[in-house]
């Protein structure tokens, strides 16, 4: 008798309740709304977890148009954190999530350390909220948002404040735009983060040839999609070697093969982001694909492939 392979992972082993997921496939913040929008289409209860749209203390209107610009196998965005605010998330969305099997993490973004703490406090103990993902890396707004993710000291200060303000598991989302991502990762781990997710979008830009000006009002915007995958993979590979907490890989993951690369590079789980726009079932497809891969390879557990590509690990079952 062949047992179905075990896909479950633990994303907060140092947390008292932990954050156990039935599989290592999450949806990335800003690409899956509040999970409700795609409910009719993709069976989101089958996912490992959903991470909701970046949430601030007060509702935000976001940036003026243009907000999107398609590039070669990529997407530049400058949304500017338009969202309904944390009170509406608690009042309207968490109530729905409380009846779901799939855990939902709230992505939080603040302009000050205190705002991050207040966001975490507001979500603490709310039924339906399984954890927070701390967004210290949004490139499309002024003020504190991105600056926190750029330096180890500020990233650690935000992490510490959030961990103190809530009993929820805390995942910290790192920016690829920091001068030294590995140093930020180490600092955030030392400050008490239960897991790290990376990468947020990479700063990029485009020029409007007709106007002879940058396409975006802020000139720069955040690049996502398959175009960023090799960069994201390299950063996950480096960070996974530098920290002991689970690392969640994000960046251009659209297929099972993409997810496998991140897992082998040391990610305990992955987030599917921009790919959901073209294929709302992309994350669910990856769940099925990972199970099929393990079966095909004669492996019983997803942990048999997590980190196998890291230096010093002897690959099991792989060709040599």
């Amino acid at each position: 008798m062949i047992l179905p392979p075990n896909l479950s992972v633990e994303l907060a082993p140092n947390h008292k309740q932990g954050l156990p997921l039935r599989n290592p496939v999450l949806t990335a913040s800003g690409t899956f709304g509040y999970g409700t929008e795609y409910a009719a289409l993709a069976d989101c209860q089958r996912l490992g977890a959903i991470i909701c749209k970046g949430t601030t203390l007060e509702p935000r209107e976001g940036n003026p148009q243009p907000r999107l610009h398609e590039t070669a196998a990529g997407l530049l965005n400058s949304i500017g954190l338009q969202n309904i605010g944390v009170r509406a998330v608690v009042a309207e969305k968490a109530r729905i999530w409380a009846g779901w099997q799939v855990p939902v993490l709230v992505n939080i973004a603040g302009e000050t350390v205190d705002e991050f703490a207040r966001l975490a406090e507001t979500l603490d103990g709310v039924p339906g909220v399984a954890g927070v993902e701390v967004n210290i890396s949004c490139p499309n707004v002024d003020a504190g948002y991105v600056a926190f993710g750029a330096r180890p000291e500020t990233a650690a200060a935000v992490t510490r404040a959030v961990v103190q303000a809530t009993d929820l598991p805390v995942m910290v989302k790192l920016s690829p735009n920091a001068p030294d991502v590995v140093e930020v990762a180490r600092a955030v781990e030392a400050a008490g983060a239960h897991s790290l997710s990376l990468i947020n979008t990479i700063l990029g830009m485009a020029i409007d040839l007709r106007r002879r000006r940058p396409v975006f009002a802020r000139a720069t915007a955040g690049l996502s999609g398959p175009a960023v995958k090799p960069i994201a993979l390299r950063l996950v590979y480096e960070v996974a070697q530098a920290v002991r907490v689970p690392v969640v890989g994000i960046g251009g993951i659209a297929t099972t093969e993409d997810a496998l690369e991140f897992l082998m590079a040391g990610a305990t789980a992955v987030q599917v982001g921009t790919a959901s726009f073209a294929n709302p079932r992309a994350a669910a497809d990856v769940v099925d694909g990972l199970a099929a891969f393990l079966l095909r390879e004669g492996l019983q557990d997803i942990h048999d492939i997590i980190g196998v590509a890291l230096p010093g690990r002897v690959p099991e079952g792989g060709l040599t």
Partner: protein
Amino acid sequence: MIQARFPIVARDELAPGTVLLRLRAPALARAARAGQFVHVRCGDSHDPLLRRPISLHRVGVAGADRGGLQPDEVALLLQVVGRGSAWLAQRRLGDELDVLGPLGRGFRPEPKAGHLLLVGGGLGVAPLVMLADEAVRAGLAVTLAMGTRTAAGVFPARLLPEEVEYAVATEDGSLGQKGLVTDLLPALLPWSDQVFACGPWPMLRALRRLLQLTPAKRAQVSLEERMGCGVGVCYGCVVETRHGRRRVCHDGPVFNLDDVVL
């Protein structure tokens, strides 16, 4: 909302770069309402990355003549403006399109409106034809005013239900009245109970100026913006309204003209 692959069963090039595709798509045909749209994948690879929003142009109904459309068929009218639409325009009979839809909030005729005035600029006529189909079937009087640069871009009168009164303006005067579609409106507005429009921003601004002279006249407009997800999660396609920034894909694409900041 469904996501499925539907085969192309007819393809007609109405003008250079303007293609009418008919899909056999029963599930989509049943759910579709005038003014809604579909989000269509334009290729099998990651490039172009995003789907393209295309207005629902027509749905086949048994016993009604809708430009030759069979029941269970859905028509899309598209114009080549970039890589995505170029790919779509090159599809052949039997090819399947990956379609997500129907999406968005469509046109909402008021129950007491007996005479609808539809105003289309260029390809903006596409969703209005479906509204005309539905209104005629409901026994309403429909006038469609359309404007384009030249005669080549005018939607063929033979494809419209014969009950529709059709008025045409071309900028070069090659068909209908010489001028803009909004030049036709002073004569048509007095007879209409409600106005529905789709077209470029200057046309919508001109329409608003005309309607300010008759404040009781209500108008709904279908708007266009670059889209990411098409379902309201990415906030890429917002427009300015009196109530703040609203998503074209989810809160629209049809808005009350009064609410839109033009």
